[in-house]
C-alpha cells in the first residue's frame, strides 16, 4: 500500500529528487556561515540563546568524531568508550607537527590518518578476546588515562603538559577567497539580506574560512566512510554485530574485520582531532578525557548508531544541547531561576527520551518520515528478468 506513490530507485524521478535534495543541502551549508557570522541570538521565553559559527564549526568536528566511533561501535558492534583517545591523539599530533615542524594543518593528516589507523588496529586486538561491557570498560580506562599521558614528565615539553599547547599558526583566508565580496552580495538581497552583515571583520572572515575548510574535510570523510560501509565491508561489519556465528560461517574473518573496523574508526577519530585543533588553535589534555568519550557515545545513540545521518545529528546535539541548556537561566516563561549543572542533566534526559521513543536514534525518525512522505521502491538488479 505504501509503495503506491513510490518512485523506483534509480529512476529519473528518483534521481531528480536526489539532486534537488543535494542542491538544497549545499545551499544551506554554503549560506549558513554568512547568516551566523554575527552570532544569532534570539530570546525565547525570556532566555537568550546563541547560535554562532564557532559552535557550528566545533559541531562539524564532533560529527566526524562520531562518524569514526560509529564504524567500530555502531556498525560492527564493538563497544568503544575510548574514542576520545584517538581524537586527542590526532589533535596533539597535529599541534606538535604544526608547532615544531611548521607543517600546515591539512598536511598533518598525512601522518594522523596512517598513524591513528595503526593505533586503532593495536587497540582492536584486545577486542578479539573480550566483548560487550568488558570491552567498554577496558576502552574507558584508555580514555581516562589520556590526560595523564599528556602530562607525563618525559613528554611534557612537547605536549605542554597541563597548560596545553597553543598552535602557532593561523588559518588566514587566502586573498583570492571572495568571502567579503560574497557577504556584500548577500547583504544586498532585499529582505533576508538584512540578516547578513555588510562585509566581514577580519576575525569573522577567518571563522567563515575555517568553517568551509572543516566542511570540506568532513564531506570527504563522510564520502569515504559511506563508500566503505555501503558495500561488502559494511555488510561484513554488520554481520559481525548481528550474529558472529553466521558471519564466520559465511567466510567473514572476524579477527581481521574487527581490527580493521577499529583501525578505520581511529583514523577517522584522528581526523576529527585535527579538525578540533584547526578550529580552536589550541589543544588541552582535559578536553580529550573520558567526558568526551561519553559525550561521543551519547551523540552516537541520540543521532542513531549504525547510520551516517546519525553522526550529523549527534554532532549537533552534543555541541548545542549543553550550550543552550546552560543558557536557559530561568524556567522558560517564568522568573524562576535555574541553578546547577542542568545542561548535562538535559542532555541525559534527552538521551533517555530518545531511547524510549526512537531506539534507532533521530536518524530512525527521519527515515520513518521520509518513507512516509517520499517513498522509494528499491529495484531488482538491472540484469534480471523478473
Amino acid at each position, binding site marked *: 500500500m505504501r509503495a503506491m506513490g513510490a518512485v523506483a530507485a534509480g529512476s529519473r524521478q528518483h534521481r531528480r529528487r536526489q539532486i534537488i535534495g543535494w542542491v538544497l543541502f549545499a545551499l544551506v551549508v554554503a549560506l549558513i556561515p554568512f547568516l551566523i557570522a554575527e552570532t544569532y541570538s534570539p530570546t525565547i521565553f525570556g532566555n537568550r540563546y546563541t547560535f554562532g559559527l564557532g559552535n557550528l564549526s566545533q559541531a562539524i568536528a564532533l560529527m566526524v568524531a562520531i562518524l569514526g566511533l560509529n564504524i567500530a561501535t555502531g556498525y560492527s558492534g564493538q563497544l568503544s568508550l575510548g574514542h576520545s583517545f584517538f581524537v586527542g591523539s590526532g589533535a596533539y599530533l597535529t599541534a606538535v607537527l604544526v608547532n615544531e615542524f611548521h607543517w600546515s594543518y591539512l598536511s598533518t593528516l598525512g601522518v594522523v590518518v596512517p598513524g591513528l589507523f595503526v593505533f586503532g588496529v593495536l587497540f582492536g586486538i584486545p577486542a578479539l578476546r573480550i566483548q560487550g561491557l568488558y570491552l567498554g570498560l577496558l576502552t574507558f580506562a584508555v580514555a581516562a588515562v589520556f590526560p595523564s599521558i599528556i602530562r607525563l614528565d618525559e613528554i611534557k615539553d612537547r605536549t605542554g603538559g597541563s597548560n596545553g599547547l597553543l598552535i602557532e599558526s593561523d588559518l588566514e583566508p587566502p586573498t583570492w577567497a571572495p568571502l567579503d565580496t560574497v557577504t556584500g552580495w548577500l547583504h544586498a538581497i532585499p529582505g533576508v539580506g538584512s540578516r547578513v552583515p555588510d562585509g566581514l571583520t577580519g576575525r569573522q572572515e577567518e571563522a567563515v574560512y575555517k568553517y568551509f575548510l572543516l566542511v570540506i574535510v568532513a564531506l570527504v570523510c563522510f564520502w569515504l566512510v559511506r563508500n566503505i560501509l555501503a558495500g561488502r565491508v559494511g555488510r*561484513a561489519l554488520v*554481520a559481525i554485530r548481528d550474529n558472529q*556465528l553466521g558471519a564466520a560461517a*559465511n567466510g567473514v574473518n572476524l579477527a581481521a574485520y574487527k581490527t580493521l573496523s577499529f583501525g578505520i574508526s581511529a583514523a577517522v577519530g584522528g581526523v576529527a582531532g585535527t579538525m578540533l585543533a584547526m578550529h580552536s588553535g589550541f589543544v588541552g589534555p582535559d578536553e580529550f578525557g573520558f567526558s568526551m568519550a561519553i559525550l561521543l557515545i551519547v551523540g552516537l545513540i541520540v543521532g542513531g548508531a549504525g547510520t551516517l545521518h546519525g553522526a550529523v545529528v549527534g554532532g549537533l546535539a552534543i555541541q548545542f544541547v549543553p550550550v543552550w541548556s546552560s543558557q536557559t537561566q530561568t524556567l522558560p516563561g517564568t522568573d524562576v531561576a535555574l541553578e546547577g549543572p542542568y545542561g548535562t542533566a538535559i542532555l541525559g534526559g534527552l538521551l533517555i527520551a530518545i531511547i524510549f521513543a526512537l531506539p534507532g536514534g533521530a536518524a530512525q525518525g527521519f527515515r520513518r518520515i521520509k518513507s512516509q512522505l517520499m517513498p522509494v521502491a528499491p529495484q531488482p*538488479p538491472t540484469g534480471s528478468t523478473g
Partner: protein
Amino acid sequence: MVLLDVTGVTVRFGGVTALRDLSFTVDEGSICGLIGPNGAGKTTLFNVVSRVYDAQEGAVAFEGADLLARPAHAISGLGIGRTFQNLALWPGMTVMQNVMVGAHHRSSIGALRAALRWGSGREEASLAQTAWDALEELSLTDVAFHPAAGLPFGTLKRVELARALVSRPRLLMLDEPATGLTQTEVGELADLLVALAQRHSLTLLLVEHHMGMVMGVSDKVVVLDFGAKIAEGSPAEVQNDPAVVEAYLGAEQ
C-alpha cells in the same frame, strides 16, 4: 568418491561427551541424512565441520584436505555451506543484503578500494545479481528488500538456504530445514532440495526430525544416539535396525 570423511571425532564439553568416536563418510553427489533423538550430537557435528567447536580427537577431511587445520572463516571458501537450526541471519540488513554476504568469500573489494570506489561498483552489481538469482530460485523476491526480521520462520529458513547457495557450496549442511512447516510444505521442500542438489551438483548433509522426509530423500542415513553412531546404511536398512528401533524410532511408534 568420498567428499566428507569424518574419522573418530570426539567432542567433550567438560564432563559431557557430545560426540564419541564418530566416523562416517559422505559420497560426492549423495544426500546423507543425519538423525537421532534430541541431544544426540547432530548439530555438534555441524559445528565441528564449520569449526565453531574443536574436536578433542579425530579428524575431518573434505576432499582429502584436513578441515580441522582451517579457521572457521575459511570453511565456506572451501565449498561448505550451512544453514542453522535457529537461524543465524542478520536482522540489521535486508533479505537481499543477507544473501549477498553469502558470496563474501567470492568477492574481494576491501576497505581501501571501496573507499575510493575502485572497482566496487562493478563487484557490487555482480553480487546483487547473484543474490537476486538465488532469491528468484527460492521464490523470495517479494521480500528481497524487507529486513531479515519479522518474517515467518519458514521464509527466513529459505533465506538462509539462499544465502548458503550463493556461496556456491559443494557440500551443503542443512540443520532441520523442515522445522515449522506443514505436511504439504515438507513435501515441497523435499522436492526442492532434490532439485537444487541436482541443479547445483550439491552434496547434502541433512539433519532433520521429520522421518518421512529424511527417509524419502536420503541415499544414506547415519543414526546417532548420545553422541555415538548406532547405525548407518540405506533408509530401509536403518529403519529395520533393531538398535535404531529401540533407541529412536521405537519411542516414536
